[in-house]
């Protein structure tokens, strides 16, 4: 059983996505319970994989027993086991949280919501665990298609937003596929490990360089890296509450993981980073992305949309960190993948509670919230401090490594961008806190009342506490996992 964990973690949600329909036939309310149980089991699988990787090292799993490079291989190493835990834990939290939100916003589509929800999680887990470049494409499409569907379940502008996302997402996926095609033509292989061994002799080939650029561009479009970010704000803002709680923390972060995986395990850091002009260009793009994202966030009056621009800024953190191409920078980027997922989750959960209680997600909906909903605001305050980067919340520690990496690499503009973004975050979050603290609640609000139901509040508070707990245990993540991820020589 334990040996089958790498397959089980994918097969379990894939099969459950079909079974949830049966649950939906029996009674709509069973869908939620079923999904929560599935996500709990998936989280259990992920934790089982952690203990196996920690004791036995990297796991290679051949699907159907076919040896690589013919068959599809799943590889679990120190990097993606972290991602598997992250994805399954965030999905579990989002699943628990989704109950009341789905019931209120999209009761008619409960069954289809949970079907897509579980499929999306399967896609994300698959993108993370696969050791095959083409299989990765398939799973990218699974997660993308279910993502479009989940977003389109929203009201009003959600359709158009989802359509824009489809266009950019498809362009991104095509670029990726095209790049993988180039690699296949030159090497005849799609297995990542195989490619990693075959490619060095071809590094001088222009086809390989083009393949690398195509793949990179495709992944960047998927993660909304500046300037390919325009699809993201509307898609995540107008999605239903339960969708954004799942999609916003995970989708971009998994794409960042894919970028790291491609650079380290298909190509090599020497190949990716060997032209310093390219490296500097990407860091500059990250800087512009961080600054733009922060400034745009400040201009928003919609709370959710503000958060979406912050995601774009944070993507700049991670891409910039990787392309600093030194140990501290990459450590920071990987750590930030985890930390930013938790922070984004925390903030979107709060945004969902605001929507649930007030019927809207404008910033002004939070007027007087410290008095009305003190627990929600406590969670919000913690998440905000983490975004600003106040120790000992998670946000501080990844920023610490990112800045350290930038200082080591003498990339002062990246240091300046990180400081700028921290200050902007301070400005925009304290503006909201001020409103929540000083202003009287708006009497016209639809849903002013006590705190949201327990199934929403438990995830909100649990995640907020997680920001502290994970932050204080950053060393475990760095020492036991991330340090094995970074290739020797960096």
């Amino acid at each position, binding site marked *: 059983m334990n040996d089958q964990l790498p397959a089980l973690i994918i097969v379990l949600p894939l099969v459950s996505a079909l079974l949830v329909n049966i649950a939906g036939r029996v009674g709509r309310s069973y869908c939620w319970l079923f999904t929560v149980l599935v996500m709990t089991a998936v989280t259990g699988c992920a934790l089982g994989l952690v203990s196996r990787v920690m004791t036995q090292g990297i796991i290679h799993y051949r699907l159907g027993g076919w040896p690589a490079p013919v068959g599809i291989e799943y590889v679990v190493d120190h990097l993606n086991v972290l991602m598997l835990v992250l994805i399954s834990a965030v999905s579990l939290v989002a699943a628990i949280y989704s109950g009341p939100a789905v019931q209120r916003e999209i009761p008619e589509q409960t069954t289809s919501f949970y079907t897509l929800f579980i499929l999306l999680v399967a896609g994300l887990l698959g993108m993370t665990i696969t050791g095959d470049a083409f299989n990765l494409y398939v799973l990218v499409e699974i997660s993308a298609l279910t993502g479009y569907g989940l977003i389109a379940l929203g009201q009003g502008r959600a359709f158009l937003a989802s359509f824009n996302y489809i266009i950019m997402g498809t362009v991104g996926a095509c670029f990726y596929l095209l790049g993988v095609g180039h690699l296949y033509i030159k090497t005849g292989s799609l297995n990542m490990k195989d490619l990693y061994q075959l490619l060095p002799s071809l590094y001088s080939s222009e086809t390989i360089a083009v393949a690398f650029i195509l793949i990179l561009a495709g992944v960047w479009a998927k993660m909304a890296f500046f300037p390919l970010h325009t699809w993201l704000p509307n898609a995540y803002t107008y999605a239903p509450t339960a969708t954004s709680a799942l999609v916003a923390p995970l989708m971009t972060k998994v794409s960042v993981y894919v970028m790291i995986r491609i650079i380290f395990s298909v190509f090599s850091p020497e190949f990716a980073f060997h032209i310093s002009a390219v490296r500097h260009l990407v860091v500059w793009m990250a800087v512009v992305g961080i600054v733009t994202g922060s400034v745009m966030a400040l201009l928003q009056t919609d709370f959710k949309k503000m958060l979406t621009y912050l995601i774009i800024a944070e993507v700049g953190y991670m891409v910039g960190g990787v392309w600093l191409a030194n140990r501290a920078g990459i450590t920071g980027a990987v750590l930030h993948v985890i930390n930013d997922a938790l922070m984004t989750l925390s903030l979107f959960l709060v945004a969902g509670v605001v929507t649930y209680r007030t019927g809207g997600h404008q910033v002004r909906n939070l007027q007087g919230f410290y008095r009305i909903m003190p627990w929600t605001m406590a969670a919000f305050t913690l998440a905000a*401090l983490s975004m*600003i*980067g*106040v*120790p*000992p919340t998670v946000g501080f*520690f990844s920023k*610490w*490594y990112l*800045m*350290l990496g930038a*200082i*080591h690499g003498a990339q002062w503009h990246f*240091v300046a961008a990180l*400081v700028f973004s*921290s*200050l902007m975050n*301070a400005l925009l979050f*304290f503006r909201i806190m*001020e409103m929540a*603290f*000083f202003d009287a609640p708006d009497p016209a609000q639809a849903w002013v009342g006590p705190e949201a139901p327990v199934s929403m509040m438990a995830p909100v508070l649990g995640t907020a506490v997680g920001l502290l707990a994970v*932050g*204080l245990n*950053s*060393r475990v993540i*760095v*020492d036991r996992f991330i340090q094995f991820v970074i290739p020797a020589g960096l």
Partner: protein
Amino acid sequence: MEPLVSIKPFLAVMVSLLAVVPILLLRSWPNLREAVTFLAGFVKWGLVLSMLGPVLDGMQIEYTAAEVLPGLPIRLRVDALGMLFALVASTLWIVTSAYSVGYMRSLKEHSQTRYFVFFSVALSATIGVAFAANLFTLYLFYELLSLATYPLVTHHQNQEAKRSGRKYLTYILGTSIGLVLPGMLMVFSLSGTLDFQPGGILNEQFSKGLIGLLLFMFVFGFAKAGLMPFHAWLPAAMVAPTPVSALLHAVAVVKVGVFSILRIVTGVFGMDLLGTFNLGQGLAYIAAVTIVVASLVALTQDGLKRRLAFSTIGQLAYIILGAAMLSPKALTGGMVHIAMHAFGKITLFFCAGAIFVATGKKNVSEMVGIGRRMPITMGAFLVGALAVIGLPPTGGFISKWYLVLGSMEAGQSLMLGVLLFSSLLNAGYFLPVFYRAFFCTPEEALFENQVKEAPAWCLVPLVGTAGVSILLFFYPQPFFGLAQLAVP
């Protein structure tokens, strides 16, 4: 010498943080709630006192709470300087708690539970800064203090509080994120550690320009010290209830600022390095300008609390000047001034609050003849004023004396002049308040000739701190001994 390992410093930090839970739970029973505050205060004070003996014997007490990242532990270490500050802060917390009860209940202030909760958190952070063994731990508690004091500063939740709170956070958080954070990372990147070492952790192999840049990033970054031009938050913060101004903006918050600068100067750069690069002089000029300008501005202020705030800005710069002159005597004077100024200034704030509670007056011009009505309060006011001016028989004389001696030892005649001139200015803005309070014709007096002091909960603390100010003149221990131990 190997430091003693003990959990006591950690407990001393945590006790007021943990007190938050019972304070919240007992929110419907105000007397019990305040009892928790007092209990936490005395436990904290007892823990600090229990470590005083070993520290005076030259020992250090250390505790590592967590190693959050490799090379980045949350570690506490009690040494002489930290003990000096912790002793001042934990003593005055108990006094201020008593005063808070009198003040908040007399004025029937709202949200008293919130007030006591954040006061407790602020004290945890203060002791955390005092005992921090490295720059990271110091930064962590420094930020916690900034955040915990925001709800206290903006307690009244009106437009003025909102404006002031905004200014407060902009200055304090803006500088700590914008200057201290990158500075800290640069130090870590240069030296590989953030641990405070007696001779500093940076050395001559780095250029003067770099060291100078870092020094000023820290000096201005710790804006709680109120060095000009990053001082404007302090007068604005006077919108807070008076006990907050008293403990936080005369003792805890502002002293955390100067304390951090002292730590940086002695533990990160080292006096020798600053001497080699002649960087002390620049710092001394900034401090001198702050002293003179703040004192001159204080002369023009009619609001008593604002006058006290500008006085504080000047007095904090004394402490920095003490470090900047790089002379052992001046540094001793500066460190002792942390304690002496604390007791003097808190007395003055308590008086200002007592006047407000008893009469509702905030401005100096409205206090003509008040001495006849509140003789005890105004008597204490005189003692506090003398302590801040630096005249006997108050403890303030001792610290000023050492600062003056130090300026002569360092051959800084200009700074000597600044110290003496500013003492005159101090007298110029404090003594008229006292004079007008007692000496006026019956027609001028704004109050009926009838004694009515503030309630005992307010009066006893201010008499106590005034008494301690006098006591410290005759017996300046243990503060003086600690300062001497702390000077390298």
